[in-house]
């Protein structure tokens, strides 16, 4: 029985794969940097899917993948119904509302918030009247050109904010990479999945 694993392309892909490789879940096809989206290790019955970070949890929730590695930011935003079995401890950052220095969010009638995380923006800023502007990237640009007052985004080092003259106004949840598991897959493959998790803990 194959084990299907969804990996997020980009920011956390390398670290995610490095850990899996460390515990014997290697996949040469993946290391070769192929453009394929499905990569297999036939001998070990592993199948990797390389998907957009915001889609990893959906692949796992629907059972297309048995497990996946995804940022906690996505899980918080989408509220996916999955087992969240391990905090992998890398990809650390936090949610923050940021804006031009001196901007006082408590003194606005309506706050225009640019973000990739509309659900969280509404929940974090629930005491304010907010206008959400959903963007898919380059969020920091929005306040610079007066498209939004503030942004809600993940902050890793704060360099991007500084380079664009933005400051953190409020900090919210901490984020790191999580190993998530499909709830039905767990029932049928729990021995293999539990072993994988124990092995990963050893190498973390």
């Amino acid at each position, binding site marked *: 029985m194959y084990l299907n694993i969804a990996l997020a392309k980009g920011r956390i892909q390398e670290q995610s794969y490095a850990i899996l490789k460390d515990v014997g879940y290697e996949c040469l096809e993946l290391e070769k940097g192929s453009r394929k989206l499905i990569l297999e290790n036939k001998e070990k019955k592993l199948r990797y899917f390389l998907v957009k970070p915001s889609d990893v949890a959906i692949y796992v929730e*629907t059972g297309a993948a048995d497990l996946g590695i995804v940022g906690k930011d996505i899980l918080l935003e989408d509220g996916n119904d*999955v087992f*969240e079995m391990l905090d992998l401890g890398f990809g650390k950052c936090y949610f923050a509302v940021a804006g031009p220095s001196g901007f006082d969010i408590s003194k606005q009638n309506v706050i225009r918030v640019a973000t990739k995380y509309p659900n969280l923006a509404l929940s974090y800023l629930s005491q304010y009247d907010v206008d959400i502007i959903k963007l898919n990237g380059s969020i920091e640009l929005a306040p610079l050109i007066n498209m939004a007052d503030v942004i809600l985004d993940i902050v890793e080092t704060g360099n991007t904010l500084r380079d664009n003259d933005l400051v953190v106004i409020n900090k919210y949840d901490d984020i790191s990479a999580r190993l998530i598991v499909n709830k*039905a897959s767990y*029932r049928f493959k729990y021995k293999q999945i539990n072993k994988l998790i124990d092995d990963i803990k050893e190498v973390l």
Partner: protein
Amino acid sequence: MYQEEVIINNLRKIYLNYGFDVYRVPKYCDYHMYFDNDSFINEHEVIKIIHPSGKILALQPDITISCAHDYLSNRLSGNKFFYIGNVYHRSLKVNQDISKIKQVGIEIFDLDDLNTDIEVLLLALQSLDLVSDSYRLDLSEVNFINGLLEEYHLSSKTLAKVNYLISRRNTSELEFLLKEEQLNKDQINELITLVKLYGPIEEVLAKAQTFIKNEAMQDSLDYLQELYKILNEIYPNTKVALDFTLRNSKDYYSGLIFQGFIKNINQPVISGGRYHKLDHLLKAVGYCFNLELVIKTLSKPPLNRQTIVLYGDNYLEAYNYAKHLRANENVLLVKEDMIKQYNLNQFNKIIKKGEY
């Protein structure tokens, strides 16, 4: 006949066979009646309708509550019921469309004993056996973990968080939270070990013995042991697992709780358990079988194939011939010049005009 109907018929047969009465599912229920109860359906998912009388109604969101309400208002006789009906929810995802979900389920009222719980599990297992060879029935008794959590004296807010994290098997955050709550290492390890325990019921029961801290936990485990002993005797089955992470966020279930999973279906197809809180008056146990999920995933339904009898001008002759065939098979009468409209691969055989 389509697979869906075959499954429904077989389920109906089982429930009637065990003496259950049919509950006819109303299409609406009173919106306020619905929300005065501890339902586990999100309020935003319920489809509201304003009746010309001004009353706010809900398009059937949860058959259990309807059935319990009708039982409590003495509109039903007996106390074992099964239903086959639709519930309607507004999807909270993307298109917010209304989804209709076909459910089959059972409810038993005012019978609060081990044998009743066993009968419910027995029916759940038989229902799963009808639709799949690879399934798991996971069960638990909520007072085992509740008993342990009582020892920790957590605030209700923390308790809600703890329950949520348990249900997601999120041991990383659970550990962090319990450390913040100043619990000692042993206490944290206990809970985390229990969350990680999963497997065949006998195996897990044996391991769980060492965690008993109080009477509630002892009673809970005794109950599970007795339950499984009898269940296994009357319906030997290796697909029953014990899973202490089965929880419900709103304290809906008060004792036995269980979920059935079928391989390659990503959500539980059966969810059920014992609940006492509904209307604060009622002791009940039951489950609901999400037929919609099963049908979607099963391979395409095989048609119970038909025979085509073609006719020209003499309909009566064809009718009489078909009538004779119909004793043993399904026959579709088709006028010769209409045959092009049919996909002939779907039929068993075609009998032409001169052949009868």
